[in-house]
């Protein structure tokens, strides 16, 4: 529980809280990027070096920009005047508070949590590579397929359909 | 093949880059304040007044005829004539300008004053570094700043200076010839008058001779 760990924890939680509560959407996306880099810092402190860097590359580098592009494409960069919360927002907050208290209670006084912290495991890139190629080779191939399918699907969905406009009346 | 043209282009710029260190005539830049580019023969910036001899006060050719003042399109010349006269290069007494100002912030270097001046007394200078911090007084050149010697004029515009000197020499020759003619006429008239007087004295010593010297010829 070094001070640095506490600071990154607080930064992460603040980033996430702002990401969910700010009015202007682009500010939310930037706060989310801060939250993700906070989480990456937490991974580095848990000696998961490869995952920490991958987190920065995937989330802060790619998904944050993706979300920001989507915000601009749907022209919602400006803060809306009317309220940003859905009608039944009270219930949502209550349920999530209950979820947090229940989880917190379970974590705080469960007996199965080991008291002493084991030595830092060595997760070098070579070990990760060997594990990926030996034990997890099937999931690796499946993830490759899933990613390709997702990429092609996303392109097809977001493509402008001006090629075959079957109902010229309602031109999108 | 892709990239062939790129390599050719890079070779050209490389030749330029290393050439500029090796051969000096590639770099044509003139480092201005230290080196000056030689000026062309007929450069003209602002007018100046020519004077002969070494004392600019007396040798000034300008006779304050104010033709240039009238002809100047932007009206940047201001002349005040003098009351008395002083002899000019032909020894003929002429007026001279008490005040001769040119406002070079107004002058547009059109050289009309040079063309209309009958006395070859105003020419165009080539000096262009005239910036001053005093915008009004600094750019109003008075007579003393305008006057420059004929030798300076020879140095600035050798060819024009030669022509203008030829004109002046011609003028002087004509003036001397006329003066000589007048002098001869005078001597001949004196001689005749003496002869007549002698004759008259011989014939009628009582008729008093009335020698009337003919008035000198009118000079232009």
């Amino acid at each position: 529980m070094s001070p640095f760990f506490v600071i990154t924890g607080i930064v992460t939680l603040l980033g996430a809280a702002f990401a969910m509560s700010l009015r202007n959407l682009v500010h939310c996306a930037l706060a989310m990027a801060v939250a993700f880099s906070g989480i990456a810092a937490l991974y580095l402190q848990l000696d998961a070096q490869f995952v920490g860097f991958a987190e920065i590359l995937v989330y802060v580098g790619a998904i944050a920009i993706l979300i920001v592009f989507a915000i601009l494409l749907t022209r919602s960069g400006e803060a809306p005047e009317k309220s940003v919360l859905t009608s039944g927002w009270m219930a949502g907050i209550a349920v999530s508070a209950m979820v947090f208290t229940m989880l917190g209670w379970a974590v705080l006084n469960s007996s199965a949590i080991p008291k002493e912290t084991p030595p830092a495991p060595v997760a070098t890139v070579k070990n990760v590579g060997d594990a990926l190629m030996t034990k997890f080779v099937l999931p690796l191939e499946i993830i490759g397929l899933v990613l390709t399918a997702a990429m092609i699907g996303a392109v097809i969905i977001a493509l402008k359909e001006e090629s075959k406009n079957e109902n010229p009346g309602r031109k999108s | 093949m892709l990239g062939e043209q790129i390599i050719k282009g890079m070779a050209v710029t490389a030749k330029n880059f290393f050439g500029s260190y090796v051969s000096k005539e590639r770099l044509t830049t003139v480092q201005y304040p230290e080196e000056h580019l030689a000026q062309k023969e007929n450069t003209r910036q602002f007018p100046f007044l020519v004077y002969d001899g070494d004392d600019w006060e007396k040798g000034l050719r300008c006779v304050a005829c104010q033709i240039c003042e009238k002809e100047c399109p932007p009206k940047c010349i201001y002349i005040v004539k003098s009351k008395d006269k002083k002899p000019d290069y032909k020894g003929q007494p002429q007026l001279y300008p008490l005040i001769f100002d040119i406002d070079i912030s107004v002058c547009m270097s059109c050289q009309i004053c040079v063309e209309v001046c009958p006395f070859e007394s105003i020419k165009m200078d080539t000096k262009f570094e005239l910036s001053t911090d005093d915008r009004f007084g600094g750019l109003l050149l008075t007579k003393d700043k305008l006057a420059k010697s004929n030798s300076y004029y020879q140095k600035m515009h050798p060819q024009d200076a030669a022509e203008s000197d030829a004109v002046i020499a011609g003028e002087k020759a004509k003036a001397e010839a006329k003066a000589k003619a007048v002098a001869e006429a005078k001597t001949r008239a004196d001689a005749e008058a003496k002869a007549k007087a002698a004759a008259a004295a011989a014939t009628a010593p009582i008729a008093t001779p009335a020698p009337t010297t003919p008035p000198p010829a009118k000079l232009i």
Partner: protein
Amino acid sequence: MFDKLDQIFVTVLHWLVSFVPEGLRPVVSAMLCIAFVMAVFPGVFAITTVLERKILGRIQNRYGPNRVGIPFTKIRLCGFGQFIPDGIKSLTKEDIVPRAADKVVHFLAPVVMLMPVLLAYAVLPFGRNMTITDYDAGLLFFFAVGGAVEVSVFMAGWSSRNKYSLLGAMRAIAQMVSYEIPLILSAVTVVMVVGSLNLSEIVKHQNNYTFGIAHWHVFTPWGLVGFALFFIASLAESNRTPFDLPEAESEIIAGYFTEYSGFKFALFFLGEYLGMFAIIGLGITLFLGGWTSPVSFLTWIPSYVWFLSKLMAIVFVFIWIRGTLPRLRMDQLMNFAWKFMLPLALINILVAGIWHYMAADWPRWLVCSAIIFGAYAILGRGLMQNQNFSKRIYRYAE
């Protein structure tokens, strides 16, 4: 003696750190390393700005700046003091923030731009055991941090509430994203052959000599193509000509930093150049043997001198390219990235695989070179076949 000179910085660091009590040692050594990087690379940046103007001048047959040497003295130093007045000028210029701008994001953009770029210097090996933090996944750290620069480009573009800077930012991000893939794929080939993401490991792999020539990756067929792809992609990543579309004068004014002036603009300028040095440093480490000397009888020259001379050599080539090539249009730029560089990078990975598994003698060279040359020719023709450059005919008015 030369070995001591080679390790001079390391010994000085340990000597300084020895004064500090045990607990503070890591913090102080980190501070000293940061001070070293902040002293060296902004200095190289200052020299490069002058160098750029002088080389561009000489390419166009004119002198570059040759008046300002040491300020307040007559010494000219043929113009190499020019960065001092430039620096003062850019720092003292008024910092105008548009009224409609989003103040916080507008202010944060240059900071978020500079932070990842400086972080990227943590993993670069400047000399023999002169790496600040020798991560096991150093290369991944470099690319992860390099990717974060796009967030700052977007922040700058969006927060100035100006159509042109937003469009410029979108173009810059599109360019950076589409050139990041060939960049990473060409680095993947090196990782495949060396077998580790650790940059010091990669340099050590290139540090042995046969017949006096070093085993640099660039001397192998896949290495040459990899370095070419890496070089072109790093030109695009650092927004340099011919890929400087987002911030070109003739295009959308100054792209995403139109609304920046004074100190913030100087930060963007510094960030751009530091990013360029970082990515060139990585290129040197991956393909040009990091701090190793090209020939075996010159190994007595200190290692960091080799790193710096290679850095300046490639910076010279960057400036040389800036003086030569015209700017690419947006569609040509995208076309080139997706239709030429990406396929070539994938084929390069295939060739690196073949290189790895074939026996180490001449058929290996033959096969790999043949595949790469064939791929280059086919892709090149594919790219060039719709450009019919007929001989230009001149028609003069009669």
